[in-house]
């Protein structure tokens, strides 16, 4: 080992800035498919009508953003948090409570540019506190604690009338209106969603290669060794929850602007589990996974009903279809659609290599 290495080392020039940039490379923008998707998303209003724009693509990006916060925690930090939708819902409720809504006795009537940062700050604080509880546990217990937080918040909103307006929830929530633009009308709102989702996506991608994100992956792989390198493992995990909570909070604000109403039904436990399904179906190893998962989820949710009715089955069974899809994907690939895609590419590359090799010998 040592001798050959010495020779090779001397033969190579010392590290240059270019070689160092391996750490700085964008991992997912090296293939043309990513660029095609990016361009398609940018010109989507030219292709899709209002229904597709918001109901399919807008919703996909919103759910993808909330799932992205779970992907960040689970994929990089090894912490499966089932409360990400709860944090998003909390942000949504805060927008309703601090902003303007139909429930004048509850809403404080702040302008959106005050209510939104307030909602984000409170959601981040809420998620960070929940995280501080959850990081004292590992594995299945983290799932249990975060699920318990989600369930507790659901029942609390159901029963609290003073702030959360009980099971009715808060309706006709005002959305931003400025520069003579109604930002909730289809096209501007689509771009607001796209910009937020892209911002979160690139932020997660960027941080994953910065000291904070690398350390989070170190904490996931070997917390004991991380402590022996000088890292305060729990502080790192709580900070990850803070960042993930902010991302989930952004998704929650978009969600409440989208539906203009929020009620306990929007944050029920099965909704929390939907977020987990989305992240796992898409793949939690990379930030793009949650968006792929969200797209599949939204397509199934929107069209499975009609599809089932056409087959002469009960349309209300669309969740069965989602469940079967979930089982199939997880059965064939432990890393969701991303895993399937990567395996397919490897197979293609191997086949190409083989045929090239054959030609070479022939």
């Amino acid at each position, binding site marked *: *080992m040592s001798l050959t290495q010495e020779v090779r080392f001397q033969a190579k020039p010392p590290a240059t800035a270019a070689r160092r940039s391996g750490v*700085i490379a964008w991992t997912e923008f090296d293939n043309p498919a990513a660029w095609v998707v990016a361009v398609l998303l940018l010109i989507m209003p030219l292709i899709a009508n209002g229904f597709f724009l918001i109901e399919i693509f807008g919703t996909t990006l919103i759910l993808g953003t909330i799932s992205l916060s779970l992907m960040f925690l689970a994929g990089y930090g090894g912490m499966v948090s089932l409360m990400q939708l709860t944090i998003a819902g909390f942000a949504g409720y805060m927008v309703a409570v601090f902003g303007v809504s139909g429930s004048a006795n509850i809403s404080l009537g702040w302008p959106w540019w005050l209510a939104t940062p307030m909602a984000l700050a409170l959601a981040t604080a809420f998620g960070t506190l929940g995280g501080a509880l959850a990081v004292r546990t590992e594995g299945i217990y983290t799932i249990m604690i975060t699920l318990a937080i989600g369930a507790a918040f659901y029942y609390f909103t159901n029963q609290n009338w003073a702030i959360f307006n009980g099971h009715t929830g808060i309706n006709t929530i005002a959305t931003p209106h400025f520069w003579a633009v109604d930002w909730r009308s289809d096209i501007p709102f689509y771009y607001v969603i796209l910009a937020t989702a892209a911002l979160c996506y690139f932020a997660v991608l960027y941080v994953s290669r910065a000291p904070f*994100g690398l*350390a989070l992956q*170190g904490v996931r*792989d070997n917390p004991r*060794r991380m*402590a022996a390198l000088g890292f305060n493992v729990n502080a790192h995990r709580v900070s990850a929850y803070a960042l993930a909570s902010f991302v989930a909070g952004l998704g929650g604000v978009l969600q409440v602007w989208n539906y203009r109403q929020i009620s306990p039904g929007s944050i029920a436990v099965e909704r929390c589990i939907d977020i987990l399904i989305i992240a796992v179906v898409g793949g939690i190893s990379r930030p793009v996974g949650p968006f792929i998962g969200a797209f599949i989820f939204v397509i199934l949710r929107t069209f499975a009903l009609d599809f089932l009715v056409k087959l002469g089955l009960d349309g209300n069974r669309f969740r069965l279809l989602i469940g079967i899809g979930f089982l199939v994907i997880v059965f064939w690939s432990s890393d969701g659609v991303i895993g399937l895609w990567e395996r397919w590419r490897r197979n293609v590359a191997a086949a190409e290599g083989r045929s090239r090799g054959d030609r070479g010998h022939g």
Partner: protein
Amino acid sequence: MDSVAQRISAIGVGAALELRGVTRMFGALAALTDVTITVRPGERRAVLGSNGAGKTTLFNCVTGDFPPSSGTIRFFGEDITHFPPYERIRRGLRRTYQISALFPGLTVQDNVYLACCGVSRGRFSPLRPRPGDALMHSAELLIQAVHLTPVKQRRVSELAHGQQRQLEIALALAGAPRFILFDEPAAGLSPTERRELIEILTSLPAHIGYIIIEHDMDVALRVVESVTMMHNGRIFKEGVPQEIESDPEVQELYLGGGHE
């Protein structure tokens, strides 16, 4: 930062590492019993003993992986008995693991860079390193020092065993170490790799002291100036290498005990 370490040792805070009556129980089993050790700054010492003698437990108590059941541990005069591991590391204590504890999914460069971040203020930084980043640069130097430059972009899971052992040492050298605990660094190394390990150990700056657990007497006795023999969780003998090597009791217990 080196100068801080040198200044502190120059002030003459008696010992780099001082253990007083350290005992560690696992249930009813005493893995360490009343261990008292004093190591001077810059001193290099081997800890010998058969399996189960308590050598690794001793390391775990010093680094705080699990705290001692009783007794006190002082590091350059400061009582660190109840400090969490990361606080001890930030004070200049380092360790390597008997079974490589690396981050297999990350590259060699990222592993060493992480180690450099861990003992700097940049450990929470959400900003990627720019070209010319100081921590990146020190990671580069460490990779060179352990001869891993040709494989620095490889994932650790792809490295040979010997290379992983070298990376293990690089992680322990990050930042400004003042005292290092090496847990069987030569385990599983070829004779060539052992020579290289000896070279790395002997070329460490003089102010960095260490304790090394090593079964291979050829390695151990060439890189240390003092030896502590442990047996059944107790200190059995202390002395310079020649004394220990020629001590009849030690020979019977350890060297002659059917060991390689």
